[in-house]
């Protein structure tokens, strides 16, 4: 087990290094650069720009810049925002809770709903419910998240007035738990749509795999009620491969969060990325890219560990 863990950890670190190289290269090789926004300010001469580039270290060769960035990062220094000179780590961790809250709520919805739809689809395979779930999942995967968000706002905020059209709390008097929850519903549901579709599909396939195995037949042969066989014996085993899915889906969820945050003016990491891109705030953009990669790798790693703990067969492979 220790070897397995160590191996996976090492793999993740190597991957993280490659990720950082790709991110750094993409950012710094792209035309424009962080000085582009200053270039149009009247009264700023070429020499001024050159001096600024020198101060920011932008005039040195790219590998040198990367090495400097990496060594600082390993020392815990993520750099400072070009926009307001705040430490990048502070900027990002200030926004992280909102995004994690949104993602957590969406995961909860999609796991509960997705597992239920998937299991029902598998039990009543090819029934009307199963057909509708299949078609529904494919349509759900085809709906642009932001558009679904707009429609939800149109129906539930503009028309019915049940849900707030955006923000994390009511401006002014808000802040209670119920107020948070009230604001969380719409963006979480919008973000969960795609995931519900994905989970229900995988759950259905996994359940179908399990249902035909010998131990399920044994359970039935023992005379256990069908409900116990399905929701106890079969579901437990069908959920095992789903642990890995939870890890794999994290980048998708993060990407969706960016869009949902934009539509619902949610003060999370996705909106921070958009704002920072507009300002060419390289250190923050780079920090967000690294954070999202760490989240993705951590998700995969945790999923692997849980899977290995829950299912001894995984460790053999």
């Amino acid at each position: 087990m220790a070897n397995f863990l160590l191996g996976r950890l090492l793999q993740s670190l190597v991957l993280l290094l490659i990720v950082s190289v790709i991110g750094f290269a993409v950012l710094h090789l792209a035309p424009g650069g962080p000085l582009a926004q200053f270039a149009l300010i009247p009264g700023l001469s070429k020499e001024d720009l050159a001096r600024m580039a020198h101060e920011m270290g932008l005039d040195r060769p790219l590998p040198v810049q990367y090495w400097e960035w990496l060594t600082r990062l390993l020392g815990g220094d993520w750099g400072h925002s070009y926009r307001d000179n705040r430490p990048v780590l502070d900027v990002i961790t200030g926004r992280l809770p909102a995004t994690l809250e949104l993602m957590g709520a969406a995961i909860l919805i999609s796991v509960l709903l997705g597992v239920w739809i998937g299991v029902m689809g598998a039990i009543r395979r090819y029934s009307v419910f199963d057909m509708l779930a299949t078609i529904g999942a494919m349509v759900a995967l085809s709906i642009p998240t932001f558009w679904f968000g707009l429609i939800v706002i149109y129906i539930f905020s503009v028309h019915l007035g049940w849900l707030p059209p955006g923000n994390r709390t009511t401006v002014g008097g808000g802040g209670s738990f119920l107020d948070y929850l009230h604001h969380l519903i719409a963006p979480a549901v919008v973000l969960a749509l795609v995931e519900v579709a994905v989970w229900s599909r995988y759950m259905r396939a996994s359940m179908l795999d399990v249902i035909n195995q010998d131990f399920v037949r044994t359970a039935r042969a023992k005379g256990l009620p069908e409900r116990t066989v399905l929701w106890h014996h079969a579901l437990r085993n069908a959920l095992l491969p789903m642990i890995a899915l939870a890890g794999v889906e994290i980048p998708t969820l993060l990407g969706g969060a960016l869009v949902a945050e934009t539509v619902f003016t949610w003060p999370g990491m996705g909106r921070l990325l958009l704002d920072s891109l507009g300002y060419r705030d390289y250190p923050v953009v780079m920090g967000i890219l690294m954070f999202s990669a760490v989240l993705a790798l951590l998700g995969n790693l945790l999923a692997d560990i849980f899977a290995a703990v829950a299912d001894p067969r995984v460790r053999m492979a």
Partner: protein
Amino acid sequence: MSAAALAQPAVAAKTGNRAWRRFCRHRLALFGVAAIALLVLASIVGPSLIPFDSLKIDIRHRFAPPPSNGHLFGTDPLGRDLLVRLLTAGRISLSIGFAAMIVSTAFGTLIGVAAGYYGGAIRVTLMRFVDAMLCFPQIFLLLVLAAFIQPNAVTLTLIIAASSWMEVARVVEGQVRSLRERDFILAAEMLGASGRYVMFRELLPNAIGPIIVAATLTVARAILLEAYVSFLGYGIQPPMASWGNMLNNAQQYLGSAPWLAIFPGLMITLAVSSFNFVGDGLRDALDARFDLQ
């Protein structure tokens, strides 16, 4: 005994159901093909049949709700006809979808074939690169690229392709790696076929099924990605219309002019789900394994 009694009707029902499922699946795929054909046709000839120009500003008739004096789908904040804009936007969005599919499928296939055929260090390097690219949320990658490169239809196509070739590479690599161990490859190599011949004449044709499926699904994804980027303001720039950028300003008029938000989204959903239906149908048709389920 009771188990046998239960099993009997279940089997009969299953056979009938399978036929019904095939029928249904086929129906969806056929619906997808028809919808795509209709969308393509409407985008090509539609704008010339409608007596409005997609860029013609008509301030007196702005925010005309659908349907009103000739504007079947209403007008936008500048009084431009929404239907003709939807169709010209379709030209852009569909072209980008197809073009990005071709570029990313070609690149992904190349990487996948090379990784699967050569194996060893080349495989590890290439596939680790693929893994690393998949660590980023696709939309992050796309935005970072789009924010720094002057966006137009061509660069946007390349950017979308650059962030969506990895799935194809994975699929192809898996296929090629398993095909590579088969006897017919050994035979070809013993006959003295070169590496390039084996890769593109022996391996690739045998992996074409999954590639076609992945390519179809990539069109769907590319149309969706174009919409996302354009919606966020980093894609196709106004006044040129794309389905994504038509939704760009729709949010502020949600209360007063909801049709501005509803129609472009419906077009995207219709186009994307059609390609997904076709991809699903193709997977059933081309991949025998899915028949067993």
